[in-house]
């Protein structure tokens, strides 16, 4: 304690460190820092000691070894001869996939449910109350297990599609196959010149955004409102469709077909992905609904009354007056919900979805016995992901929040 420099104060006594308000806060902070560092050092020492007692070394070289296990859902090339590091990346991508899909769906579900919960229609409002209370009061793990069990138990198995008079048949003329192992949809097959179609589509998006900006400016200048939705839709799809047919349909669809034990071809969305995605979205959606409801209720009633008095229809009142103001209240708690969803996705292993926890924190950890290293990497990954979501959402929050002039 005596290390604190007290130059210039000739009357300094040790007691002043506690009784003098000028020094007290320093004293407390330094003591707290020392305690904290001691605790950290002791923890670190404990880890080193325990690892030594168990005869374990610390290092990340195991990531370069062959993983020797297979992963069902891979967004990048992977086989059992790939390394543990690659297996970890496959898992990380799977986590990100379900997190992104989940966040989008949870927002859509949440906004709809939140708005409908305030509906004047008694039945709809009550139904939404049941949805919200049902989902947010039951643990998400149970919802995940239930969703996957429902898919597994109620949908037909692939071999029920077999034979001249099968028990089950694909829907929408072969476009959608619902089996208890997952859903199949057609996959696009890119032929020659197909890039042209894609480029035209991307250009259309740009043109559409430009058009909307121009229309908004025009509306602000002249007060005329253009039928935005149909025009946007036309700009978005007409040129693409035109080019698509002019080039002789370069993009074709590959339909799923029953071959051997399973359907082959098309895009396969596994039961675990669907179940996890659905359960996470509905669960988080219930919380989002409450956040949206609170946001809308936070906008004073005078705002909507003023909008009605100006002659705005209810839809426009919601979109132009209420929601923009409600967003300021909605966005900050919504960030937490996105973070929750991302972290809850680590429950994936319960239904056999191979996310980062399943590969890096599961099979890799188990086969190599590197608990410490695997868990540190895993914690690092979730930390980075969560912080990235926070950064993006906080940036968005900055944009929508009230600008004080």
């Amino acid at each position, binding site marked *: 304690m005596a290390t604190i420099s007290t130059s210039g104060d000739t009357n300094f006594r040790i007691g002043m460190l506690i009784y003098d308000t000028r020094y007290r806060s320093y004293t407390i902070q330094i003591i707290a820092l020392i305690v904290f560092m001691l605790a950290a050092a002791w923890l670190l020492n404990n880890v080193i000691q*325990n690892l030594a007692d168990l005869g374990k070394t610390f290092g990340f070289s195991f990531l370069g070894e062959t993983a020797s*296990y297979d992963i*069902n859902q891979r967004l990048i090339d992977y086989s059992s001869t790939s390394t543990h590091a690659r297996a970890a990346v496959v898992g990380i991508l799977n986590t990100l996939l379900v997190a992104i899909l989940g966040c989008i769906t949870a927002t859509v579900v949440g906004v709809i449910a939140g708005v409908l919960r305030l509906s004047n229609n008694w039945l709809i409002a009550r139904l939404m109350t049941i949805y919200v209370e049902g989902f947010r009061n039951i643990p998400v793990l149970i919802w995940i297990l239930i969703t996957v069990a429902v898919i597994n138990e109620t949908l037909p198995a692939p071999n029920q599609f077999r034979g001249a008079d099968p028990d089950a048949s694909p829907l929408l003329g072969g476009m959608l196959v619902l089996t208890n192992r997952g859903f199949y949809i057609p996959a696009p097959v890119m032929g020659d010149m197909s890039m042209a179609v894609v480029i035209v589509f991307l250009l259309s998006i740009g043109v559409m955004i430009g058009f909307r900006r121009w229309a908004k400016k025009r509306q602000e200048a002249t007060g005329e409102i253009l039928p935005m939705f149909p025009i946007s839709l036309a700009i978005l799809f007409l040129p693409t469709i035109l080019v698509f047919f002019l080039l002789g349909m370069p993009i074709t669809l590959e339909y799923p077909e029953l071959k051997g034990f399973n359907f082959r071809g098309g895009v396969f969305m596994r039961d675990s992905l669907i179940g996890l995605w659905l359960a996470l979205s509905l669960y988080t959606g219930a919380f989002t609904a409450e956040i949206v409801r609170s946001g809308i209720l936070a906008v004073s009633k005078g705002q909507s009354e003023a909008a009605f008095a100006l002659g705005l229809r209810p839809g426009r009142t919601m979109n132009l007056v209420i929601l923009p103001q409600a967003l300021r209240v909605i966005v900050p708690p919504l960030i937490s919900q996105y973070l929750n969803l991302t972290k809850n996705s680590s429950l994936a292993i319960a239904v056999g979805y191979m996310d980062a926890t399943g590969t890096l924190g599961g099979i890799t950890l*188990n086969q190599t016995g590197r608990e410490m290293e695997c868990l540190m990497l895993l914690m690092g990954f979730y930390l980075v992901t969560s912080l990235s979501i926070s950064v993006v959402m906080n940036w968005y929050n900055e944009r929508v929040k009230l600008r004080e002039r």
Partner: protein
Amino acid sequence: MKVKGAIIAAAAVMAVSTAANAATLDDVKAKGFVQCGVSTGLAGFAFTDANGVWDGFDVTFCRATAAAIFGDANAIKFTPTTGKTRFTALASGEVDILYRNTTWTLSRDVDLGFTFTGVNYYDGQGFMVRKSLGVKSAKELDGATVCIQTGTTTELNLADFFRANGMSYEPVPIETNAEAQQKYLSNACDVYTTDASGLAATRATFEKPGEHVLLPEIISKEPLGPLVRQGDDQWADISAWVLNALIIAEEKGVTKANVAKLAADGSADPEVNRLLGKEGSYGEMLGLPADWAVHAISAGGNYGEIFERNVGESTAIGLARGLNQLWSKGGILYAPPFR
């Protein structure tokens, strides 16, 4: 300050786990029971009966170990572990010994820091499919959806088998046997693969076991046995010799029924006398009472009796002795001499 509180609490938890590295036998004697890691539930091997009491093949070996130390087969507590959690449970000192259909492999023995102390069941990985699929061989499984327990050697064997045969498959990783069973029965996978004994045990619990077949291929060697933490030779020796004693007991015809009488009256066979503590001081060498093997055998009988009662041909599981027959009767069960 809250954060700091949490750190100190976490540190305290870690400090507790450090203590587990002392001599395990002393720790076990001090707490008065053996903590045994078993499966979360596998018919015949480790399961809780209607009264919530653990029973089964692996469980009986655990009880024999406890009986050898305390003279009481109930001086034991069980920790159900999954394929994934078992090694962490043992390494952290949560359990003293693991009897959980665990395959003896080099990396587990050496790299994970455990000691396998013997083999109580010689097994191999097999496949179970529905009869209605009409599959006759594992080589016909190209493109099949396969349910596997994650964190096991079966996962690795499976990858090797399909790669070696140039076939593709869709793995469905699952945590416990019960979940795998549900997935398989709902037809969410075509095939369930695990050790052949586990398949037979699982099939026995099905409503219609006759509708499912085990394919003839056994694709791996799976010597299943007990394991302990590396670095405590005394504890490893106890675990090994309890198992050996039960095998020798079968060899010498010492059964649950006659063990008390043989221990009291002695036998013409000197090895039986040594086994039962009538001659020599073998118990003392292990740090156990002289009559440790008597108690171990009294717990559930000799190896053959344990096998027959839990998984043998007279039970619903109906496993033949096969490789697990004594060496003198055509199997490979062979315990070193008791002297």
